[in-house]
């Protein structure tokens, strides 16, 4: 009983960590640029499909595809931003939502055309498969890997924000964009780099998600809701908020799938609506 | 025995350690023409936001006439006669002045919630709106969308919308902000024409205007009231001179 509980907790947390990597970029850019980018899931797909292609067609090892996924998604996002997004920085929430929904639709169609509609088969390297057994408890190696990877990424982000000059610039732009501009910060550049980093993380998350979540063309829409929940409930531009919300979300999802599978997403949506009504700026938001 | 139209007592508001309103106590008698002056960032607009309910005070009381309105929401205060204009045009770009002022009139008359009758059937509201616009010389342009109006006309429209709510107390936040001196005459003629039983508190930077219209001046610095008095008293006040670096222009 306890073993089952701990196992679920572990799986849930791992799943949450994956959601965190996928969503944290959206949280920061939405909070910083005030741009509703519903195509964030498409960036994840770019990373995922690229990783799959490298692995299955070019024989790359799994771990090597991860940095490429990150960079490819980052580059893709910057191109999109320069060509399309920047025209709508002053547009309404509605227009931004619709533009990015249009991009999601297109990316789903393209993925289906190129890769087909089935889930992509993936072969994880041997050292990431299997389970570690400690007495009564057993933990999946891959899930452990996810948790470690997410923690490392979090640490890098937090340290980067606190101790690097770029990090200080990001914090300034989040706090007070006008003032930052007035102080001579190249706000556009900071936006672009942050956007690239956040989208790169989504791409990385997409590659990491191939095995646990399954990669098919609908990925962008299917998991968009989860990503939006992490961002909305966690609070915009809040790494801490995204971390805890994603972790919580993962745990709730895994637990409800096991104990009350017939409820489906109901609990999740109910909790989200409830939390948003209670704290519209996000449960973990600062003010 | 002058009636007090609006008063605040001990109004406080802090953002962390920043004091934007420190123990503000003001009394505005009926028919007053008070000016609120002070350097940028003194908290003048914040005070108006506190008075109108757009910002909630940490402590203190606001009394309109005989009623304590500290807990009344912004739209309730307008209904009771406390109306303000905005320093930056806060207008309806795609509505015409006629529509905008008619809307304000309908709100005042409690008719704006009616969804089953057609707007043109409210002849009185439309006529009243047009009358207000005419007195501010906006009659000719009342059919064009607001965004097509000249800036000076938009500032006049700001006042027109406020007047349509038949205020007892009118708070004008830099009514001539951004209007070049040559064009501001009309605007101040309009301000001068405001009915004498309406109490007016206006924020202004131009000392000429202040001395022309105000019977009493309140000076705010860093969220607090520095001093209050007649124009003569203020212009000869040492502390005020210091604050304004002597010249008297904000």
């Amino acid at each position, binding site marked *: 009983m306890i073993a089952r509980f701990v196992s679920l907790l572990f799986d849930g947390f791992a799943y949450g960590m994956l959601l965190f990597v996928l969503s944290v970029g959206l949280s920061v850019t939405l909070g910083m640029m005030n741009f509703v980018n519903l195509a964030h899931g498409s960036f994840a797909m770019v990373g995922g499909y690229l990783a799959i292609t490298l692995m299955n067609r070019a024989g790359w090892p799994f771990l090597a595809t991860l940095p490429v996924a990150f960079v490819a998604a980052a580059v893709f996002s910057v191109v999109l931003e320069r060509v399309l997004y920047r025209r709508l920085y002053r547009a309404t929430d509605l227009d931004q939502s619709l533009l990015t929904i249009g991009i999601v639709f297109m990316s789903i169609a*393209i993925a289906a055309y190129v890769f087909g509609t089935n889930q992509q088969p993936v072969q994880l390297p041997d050292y990431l498969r299997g389970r570690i057994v400690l007495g009564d408890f057993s933990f999946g190696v891959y899930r452990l890997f996810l948790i470690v990877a997410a923690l490392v990424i979090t640490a890098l982000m937090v340290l980067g924000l606190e101790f690097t000059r770029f990090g200080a610039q990001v914090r300034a732009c989040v706090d007070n964009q006008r003032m930052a501009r007035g102080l001579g910060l190249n706000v556009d550049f900071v936006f672009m780099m942050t956007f690239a980093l956040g989208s790169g993380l989504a791409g990385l998350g997409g590659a990491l998600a191939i095995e646990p979540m399954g990669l098919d063309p609908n990925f962008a829409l299917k998991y968009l809701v989860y990503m939006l929940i992490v961002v909305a409930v966690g609070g915009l531009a809040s790494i801490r908020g995204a971390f805890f919300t994603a972790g919580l979300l993962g745990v709730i999802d895994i637990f409800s799938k096991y104990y009350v599978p017939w409820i489906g997403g109901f609990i999740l949506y109910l909790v989200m609506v409830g939390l948003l009504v209670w704290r519209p700026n996000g449960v973990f938001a600062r003010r | 025995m002058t009636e007090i139209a609006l008063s605040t007592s001990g109004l406080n508001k802090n953002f962390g350690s920043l004091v934007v309103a420190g123990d503000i106590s003001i009394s505005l008698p009926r028919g007053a023409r008070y000016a609120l002056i002070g350097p940028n960032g003194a908290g003048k607009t914040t005070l108006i936001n506190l008075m109108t309910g757009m910002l909630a005070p940490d402590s203190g009381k606001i009394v309109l006439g005989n009623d304590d309105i500290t807990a009344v929401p912004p*739209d309730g205060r307008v209904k009771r006669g406390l109306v303000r204009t*905005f320093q930056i045009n806060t207008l309806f770009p795609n509505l015409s002045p006629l529509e905008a002022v008619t809307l304000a009139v309908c709100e005042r008359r409690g008719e*704006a919630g009616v969804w089953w009758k*057609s707007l043109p059937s409210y002849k009185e509201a439309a006529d009243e709106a*047009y009358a207000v616009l005419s007195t501010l010389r906006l009659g000719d342009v*009342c059919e064009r969308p607001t965004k097509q109006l000249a800036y000076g006309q938009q500032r006049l429209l700001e006042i027109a919308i406020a007047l349509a709510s038949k205020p007892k107390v009118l708070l004008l936040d830099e009514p001539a902000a951004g209007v070049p001196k040559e064009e501001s005459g009309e605007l101040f003629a309009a301000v001068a024409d405001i009915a004498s039983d309406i109490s007016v508190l206006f924020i202004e930077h131009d000392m000429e205007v202040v001395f022309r219209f105000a019977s009493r001046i309140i000076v705010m610095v860093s969220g607090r009231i520095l001093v209050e008095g007649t124009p003569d008293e203020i212009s000869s006040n040492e502390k005020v001179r210091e604050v304004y670096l002597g010249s008297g222009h904000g």
Partner: protein
Amino acid sequence: MNAQTTSAAFNPQEVLRAQVRWRALEIVFWVATLAPFVLTPNYLVLCSQIAIAALFALSLDLLVGYSGIVSLGHAVFFGVGAYSAGLIAKNGWGEPISGLILASVIAAAFGYFISFIMVRISHFALIMVTVGLCLLVGEIANNFHDITGGDDGLQGVKMWPIFGMYKFDIFGRTAYVYALIATFLSFLAVRRVVNSPFGLSLRGMRENQRRMPAIGAPMKKRLQVVYVISACFAGLAGALSAQTTQFVALDALSFQRSAEVLVMLILGGAGRLYGGLIGAAIFMVARDQLADMNPQYWYFWLGLLLVIVIIFLPNGILGGLAALIDRLRSRRS
């Protein structure tokens, strides 16, 4: 101060009246909706669907175009209306008109209850709650598949003849007459709402939310009313759909449905009453013509259309036309 004295007394009431008067083009439009009976009698089923989609888009326009609220979950009202109408008929009461009205009232009541939540949030949180609500109700419908039919859809919806005389025939004649009349009457009602003082206050909210409390407007109350009205007509559209197709599928509550109706509205132009109608017509006809296309390709073109419309025609087709007319007019003078 002298008020401006004009020679011919300016009549502000006339100005306002001119804005709400029926235009010739409008009459042409509504007469044209009768054309399918004569011109394309084989497409009446599609025409019913167009009328229903048009009404659905019109209901969304009240929120998006006139009040400035972003709703990505409008299908929830459509779905509530559809399932209500379907279940009413399935459980023995097949009278169409009363079923239609009852389903609309249920949708309106639902709109009333959730409006308490909706008026207290804005921006991103509001978008999220609209999405979440729609998904939530969708899950409920899915879970109670004993009642709703779940994935298979609600079947066995048997409608009685209208007024005891007009059966719903397979050619869709009755359905189209029924849907068209319902849509037209609803349009008249929405038109009245939009041209009322309430409608003006909605536009005020859309134009400048900040100014509204400053003129004494109780915004929350007003928004609640618009949610009820919007939900009522979206529910009516859903009920029409259930009654005319005698079937309700889970996708009536889907995110795709919410996104599509938003696309229809933006395509035609929000805030112009006819934008949703025209956008719906174009969208539905295009989809019908491209029906043979693989659904993936449909989503590609849909996505591309969205991107192009948002970038180049942000006010939709009607907005673009209006701007064009303005430019021609100013060039002439």
